[in-house]
């Protein structure tokens, strides 16, 4: 198979792929801890959920920078 495309495409793939590792671990930890807290204090579940989504959004934002970067790199010739 012939390899086509520029290195920037490769870079774009890495930008998103590698950039998503950290946030993925973070989101997993947020979810695990939230479930743990909910099990411990079910009456706080509502507030915990809101806080969880905010924390998720923050972690996700980092992955999104990778996503944007990937798009930017894709456009480079």
């Amino acid at each position, binding site marked *: 198979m012939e390899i086509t495309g520029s290195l920037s495409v490769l870079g774009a793939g890495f930008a998103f792929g590698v950039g998503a590792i950290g946030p993925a671990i973070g989101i997993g930890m947020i979810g695990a801890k939230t479930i743990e807290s909910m099990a411990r204090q079910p009456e706080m579940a509502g507030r915990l959920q809101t806080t969880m989504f905010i924390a998720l959004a923050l972690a996700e934002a980092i992955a999104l920078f990778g996503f*944007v970067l990937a*798009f*930017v790199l*894709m*456009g*480079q010739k």
Partner: protein
Amino acid sequence: MDALIPKMPEILVALTSFLVLFVILGKFAFPPVTKMLDERAEKIRESLEKAEETRVEAERLLEEYKVQMAEARAEAGKVIEQGRTVAENMKNEIIAKAREEAESERTKAIESIRAEKLAAMAELQASVADLSVAVAGKIIGQQLSAADHAALIERSIAEVGSLHEN
């Protein structure tokens, strides 16, 4: 890169449609619904309060009725007890009276029987004497055969017996 750059026509459409939607929903959709939700919450709260009030009132009445019932029951018991004593007394009285009356009746009867008996005895004695005199006269007046003799005695005895019977 191209996909990340916002396109002008989309910005305009998104902005105007959002603002129009905000005005429409903010005027016609959300206020009635939130008002209704508040009303419902208020209504539920009111009904719950009213129900609670009614419950407390009912409990109070029940308590009152219970007390009244107990009082009435005690009263009725007392009345019955009283009636019973009264009846008992009356019964005793009546029995005593009846006994007394019976006693007096009996003594009276015994008395009268004795008196009559005495009178009858006296009369009998008198008649026996008369009879004896009459018999003696008859004997003296005529000769008696042995048969006559027996018949006479028998008659006398029968007479005495009949007298005694009376």
